[in-house]
């Protein structure tokens, strides 16, 4: 084994991308009769719509259709139908689309929008999620009780709570009573933007024959197809979704976004197709973002470091809609305590509505936020006990085959090993750490680590499929449903096929763009699930194809199928490679010299379905994920205590991914994900004024990490304890690469200067402010130093 699996094969999409020929939804403008769509958004975070006057705009030459919420007042969403296509009656965030136009050109559409008059009656808005939880007079959704939702969720009508997830294990009161110390803290992370570079694009074509065709920058084309059928009350099979290459997604293009509006415009535009492409500012204000989090944690611990009780309240700020983010709150809720075994747990995870842009999935799906809180808390506990933070963790971490998770589920025996990751990271950090260097007493260095875990958050019946089709030349076309948004899964899937069928990787063809009519089904491209789920489906499809091949070959070679081998494009009886048949002579059907033929073109098919359970509504008990990837990250930081300036000197990661199908792709994910996490941890925050207006909807004020800000040193370890039901043992890694970075930075700061940080982003300003509050004497170091001279 291991001709292709385990090799750094070059990406299947590499050449198209360096040649500039890879096509994105953004690039598609050659559809006949294509119109341009634009929308007008609400300037208020919360207001009744009094009237909409479109009379002037309608008269403009080149305007084809103008639609408002009343034209198709269907509420859309993935797990909960809580979002209007265009606001009906009231607006719930500043940036919400209210009126949309289709026109012959962008200029005409812009001009027409200026002519539309909307009268609003402003309402008090709720911006702070903690206040939203307590409020029953200001409600973002008064009609919450009427909304449809998946049975896995628990919205509370008459409040702003979109979902309340409960986790209960053991006896929390007893746990606290038996604790030697109780430590309580609150940690926060703000809402942030995905900041993928390709903006949201949706081209919708509602056709006269009742069919819908869509081109969308969608991570989940099959989910879009399904939900579009529901939204427009037509059969799923009448909808075709094309998802070309995505210019980044990171969760922000999962679920259903602007496809319904593009299709609605098309429906009202004489069935002409309409392209809706968001500007960057629109993308910030009107497209989905990531939840913010407030976490209150109370931990009971024994003097020996054993954590015996933990009570948590998570508040997830989902903005105005939570159709996808209810599941962020749920996933955050069932993981709650991170990769640890604790006997007494009470955790309540609330997804809250506020009058801000709506949240959706984001790489990590709540886990970066929750591990920020949990892993900071672990270090603070260790400090309180006077214990080494690594030792404290190891006493409490989950152990494969032995421990019971927070969901009272015994961890599988072939699960990953978090301790091994932790040791690798910690040893590396310690070996390289020189402590204080240089002669400037105001520069401090410190190291910090964090641990984490994550599995794919998906419904228990989430499924994948694949088919493998042979061509005359012995090449295969592999069809899968997962989207290519940069993560590189299609390459790993091709490697799995090449390995299983023992054919050269160059002969494996797999497309980066998706077409729901052509391609095999998958639920969604999210949660680091594709390699595992679609990988198993591809492998099964190859096994199926192999059976078909052996069926034919056995008649030619007079050998039973189970005694045949397929290797290097030839088929032979075990032990007798010289009695071989060329694969290419079999795959389109075999013809004997007499001219008689058997078999036919080979096409293998494979599926995979998640093995999970529902979670108990009162306790969260059950099996929430098909695998958990464990990992650890660490950083060395340098802090200038006079200015709060922080430099990341070294960034180390380790993940137990079971098997690296393509080590270079793993490295790319680790580099990209941890720098993204660095950016989020140090810089990123969506800022609002008290009325809910977004203050930084551009790449100048919303600061992203640039090449200049990279850490000096970068290292990673791939730990490979294989999972037996995974394709070649491999677990997902894509999201994991982010989860531990912010907490490791926070812990390293505490290690360097004994100042605790509770909130992100960890800007220099924040560090300086916390130094002033917690250790003001540090600010005088320079004066003292100069006086000494």
């Amino acid at each position, binding site marked *: 084994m291991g001709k292709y699996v385990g090799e*750094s094969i*070059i*990406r299947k*999409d*590499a*050449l*198209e*991308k*360096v*040649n*500039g*020929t*890879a*096509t*994105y939804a*953004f*690039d598609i*403008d050659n559809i006949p009769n294509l119109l341009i769509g634009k929308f007008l958004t609400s300037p208020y975070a919360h207001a009744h719509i009094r009237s909409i006057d479109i009379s002037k705009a309608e008269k403009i030459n080149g305007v084809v259709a103008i639609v408002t919420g009343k034209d198709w007042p269907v509420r859309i969403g993935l797990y909960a139908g809580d979002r209007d296509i265009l606001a009906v009656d009231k607006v719930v965030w500043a940036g919400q689309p209210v009126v949309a136009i289709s026109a012959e050109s962008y*200029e005409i559409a812009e*001009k027409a929008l200026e002519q539309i008059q909307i009268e609003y009656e402003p309402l008090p808005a709720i911006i702070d999620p903690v206040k939203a939880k307590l409020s029953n007079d200001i409600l973002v959704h008064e009609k919450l009780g009427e909304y449809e939702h998946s049975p896995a969720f628990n919205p509370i009508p008459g409040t702003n709570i979109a979902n309340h997830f409960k986790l209960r294990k053991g006896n929390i009161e007893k746990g606290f009573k038996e604790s030697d110390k109780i430590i309580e803290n609150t940690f926060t992370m703000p809402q942030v933007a*995905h*900041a*993928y*570079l*390709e*903006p949201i694009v949706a081209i919708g074509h509602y056709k006269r024959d009742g069919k819908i065709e869509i081109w969308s920058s969608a991570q989940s084309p099959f989910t879009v197809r399904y939900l579009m059928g529901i939204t427009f009350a037509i059969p799923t099979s009448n909808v075709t979704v094309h998802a070309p*290459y*995505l*210019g*980044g*997604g*990171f969760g922000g293009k999962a679920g259903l976004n602007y496809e319904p509006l593009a299709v609605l415009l098309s429906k009202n535009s004489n069935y002409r197709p309409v392209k809706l492409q968001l*500007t*960057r500012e629109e993308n910030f204000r009107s497209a989905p973002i990531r939840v913010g989090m407030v976490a209150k944690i109370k931990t009971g611990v024994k003097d020996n470091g054993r954590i015996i009780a933990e009570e948590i309240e998570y508040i997830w700020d989902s903005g105005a809609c939570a159709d996808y983010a209810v599941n962020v709150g749920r996933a955050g809720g069932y993981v709650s305590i991170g990769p640890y075994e604790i006997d007494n747990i009470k955790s309540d995870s609330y997804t809250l509505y506020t009058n801000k842009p709506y949240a959706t999935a984001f790489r990590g799906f709540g886990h970066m936020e929750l591990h920020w809180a949990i892993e900071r808390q672990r270090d603070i506990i260790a400090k309180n006990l006077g214990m080494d933070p690594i030792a404290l963790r190891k006493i409490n971490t989950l152990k494969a085959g032995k421990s019971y998770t927070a969901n009272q589920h015994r961890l599988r025996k072939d699960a990953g090993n978090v301790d091994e990751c932790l040791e690798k990271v910690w040893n590396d950090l310690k070996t390289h750490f020189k402590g204080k260097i240089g002669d400037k007493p105001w520069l401090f260095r410190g190291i910090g680590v964090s641990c984490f875990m994550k599995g794919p958050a998906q419904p228990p019946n989430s499924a994948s499929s694949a088919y493998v089709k042979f061509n005359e030349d012995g090449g295969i076309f592999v069809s899968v449903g997962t989207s290519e*948004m*940069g*993560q*590189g899964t299609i390459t790993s899937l091709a490697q799995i096929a090449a390995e299983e069928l023992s054919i050269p990787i160059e002969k494996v063809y797999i497309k980066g763009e998706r077409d729901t009519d052509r391609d095999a089904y998958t639920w969604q491209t999210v949660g680091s699930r594709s390699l595992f789920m679609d990988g198993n489906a591809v492998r099964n499809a190859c096994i199926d194809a192999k059976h078909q091949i052996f069926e034919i070959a056995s008649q030619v070679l007079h050998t039973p199928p189970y005694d045949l081998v397929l290797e290097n494009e030839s088929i032979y009886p075990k032990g007798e490679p010289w009695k071989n048949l060329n694969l290419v002579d079999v795959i389109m059907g075999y013809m004997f010299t007499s001219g008689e033929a058997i078999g036919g073109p080979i096409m293998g098919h494979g599926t995979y379905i998640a093995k999970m359970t529902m979670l108990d509504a009162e306790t969260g008990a059950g099996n929430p994920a098909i695998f958990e990837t464990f990992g650890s990250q660490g950083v060395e930081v340098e802090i200038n205590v006079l200015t709060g300036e922080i430099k990341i000197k070294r960034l180390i990661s380790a993940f137990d991914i079971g098997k690296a199908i393509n080590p*270079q*792709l793993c*490295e*790319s994910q680790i*580099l*990209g*994900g*941890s*720098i*993204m996490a660095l950016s989020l941890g140090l810089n990123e925050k969506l800022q609002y004024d008290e009325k809910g207006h977004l203050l930084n909807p*551009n*790449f*100048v004020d919303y600061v*992203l990490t*640039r*090449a*200049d800000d*990279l850490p000096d040193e*970068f290292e990673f370890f791939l730990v490979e304890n294989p999972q037996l039901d995974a394709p070649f043992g491999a677990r997902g890694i894509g999201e994991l690469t982010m989860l531990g970075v912010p907490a490791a930075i926070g812990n390293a700061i505490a290690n360097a200067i004994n100042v605790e940080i509770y909130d992100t982003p960890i800007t220099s300003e924040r560090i300086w402010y916390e130094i002033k509050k917690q250790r003001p004497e540090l600010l005088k170091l320079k004066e003292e130093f100069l006086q000494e001279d």
Partner: protein
Amino acid sequence: MIVNESESLIINVNNIEHKISVKPNETLLDVLRLKLGIKSVKAACWSGDCGICTVLIDGKPMKSCLVLSHEIRNKSIMTVEGLLEDELFQKLQNSFVKNGAIQCGFCTSAFLLVGYYLIKNKRNLDLLSIKKGINGIICRCTGYKQIIDSIYELK
């Protein structure tokens, strides 16, 4: 009032002369993508902040969303399409492929063009000057390191 008078202009893109009619407020980005169908050039902010729309104007990297079309009279524009046969550019492409510098690919053209410019024009190119050289372009996927390594390898 929308300015409507179009003027006609001859521009040289990828060594081919095009006669086009443009409005005074039309950007080079729109001319390339919408008028000439050159889709390797991407955009993500339309206001000079992301660098994704970078092209070479007389050999120098410029953000095409900030350049008005009449400013490029008598200038020569290069995009990825025009460099596909260039030996140095091909080496750089291979270096990107080999080093894993590509993920979603939306930023790739811009980094290739700036990388090409740096290798061709900067002496003593070191990691720091590469970082400075590409600092104007955002990549949300790769974390930049493999892009920097790809350029460094060809210095």
